[in-house]
């Protein structure tokens, strides 16, 4: 049964059906949330933690959700914030000389069964890892998810103009990297 956002929210707001409603919310959006995070953090274990955190935060703040945006853009905003904060922390940790997370992600791409043997896919994924995190996010939201700039603006809280410019730069850099050899 596919429930609408409105029906899911009604279930969650009733104390008798809150858990059923929340389960429905997870089942409806788990794949989308997981993949938007996974594309950013690459490693499954990290994506798993962040996906769980996203839904736990959503559970805590659902009462404050006013319905001005769709559930999907609201969840994406939490998810992308989680992923960006995670990568930011990893970068800062690198300066404390613990490990190079960037290298870890690249090496994961080399050994991931899903991409094995597909040189172009590995090259493309590695090209994306060379972009600044937010630019990479913009690229994925536009190119992979095919969201409109207006939806992306809602998710990122950024102007449409800035997102268009960011996407344009990302595409140029990825093309240059992928086609350079």
């Amino acid at each position: 049964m596919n429930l609408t956002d409105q029906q899911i929210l009604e279930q969650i707001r009733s104390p008798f059906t809150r858990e059923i409603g929340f389960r429905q919310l997870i089942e409806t959006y788990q794949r989308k949330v997981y993949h938007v995070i996974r594309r950013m953090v690459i490693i499954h274990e990290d994506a798993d933690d962040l996906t769980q955190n996203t839904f736990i935060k959503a559970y805590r703040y659902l009462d404050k959700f006013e319905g001005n945006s769709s559930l999907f853009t609201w969840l994406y905003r939490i998810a992308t914030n989680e992923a960006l904060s995670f990568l930011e922390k990893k970068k800062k940790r690198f300066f404390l000389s613990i490990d190079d997370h960037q290298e870890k992600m690249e090496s994961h791409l080399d050994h991931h069964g899903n991409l094995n043997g597909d040189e172009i896919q590995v090259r493309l994924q590695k090209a994306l890892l060379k972009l600044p995190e937010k630019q990479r996010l913009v690229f994925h939201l536009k190119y992979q998810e095919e969201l409109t700039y207006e939806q992306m603006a809602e998710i990122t809280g950024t102007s449409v103009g800035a997102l268009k410019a960011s996407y344009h730069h990302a595409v140029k850099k990825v093309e240059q990297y992928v086609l350079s050899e």
Partner: protein
Amino acid sequence: MNKLPKIKDLQAPDGYFDRLPDDILAKTKPNNSVSWTKYAAAAAILIGLGLTWQFGGIPFEEQPISLDEEAHLYIESQIWTAEDILSFADDPNALLDQIIEEEMPTSEELWAEDESNWF
């Protein structure tokens, strides 16, 4: 852009999405056993303090220094480095997160539009 193929999504392990809703729901439920252990620990400390007081306590000069104080002594005398301390921690990730939380900006600032990171 026509030159680039679509990106293949990295797949989650088999059965992952079947388990995920239960894993998340389990984490949203209050953990009653924690409150029980808290009371038990508090009671044990109180009984211990009571017995110590009852039987005259430990003479001041024989009291061992706390683990924190001992660690500080080692750090200040440069016997331990920051890396050593992290390797001793049960959860070095949590310790690092705490340090970063205290010293670095919050996640809200990640979205500042004038950052060069967008371009």
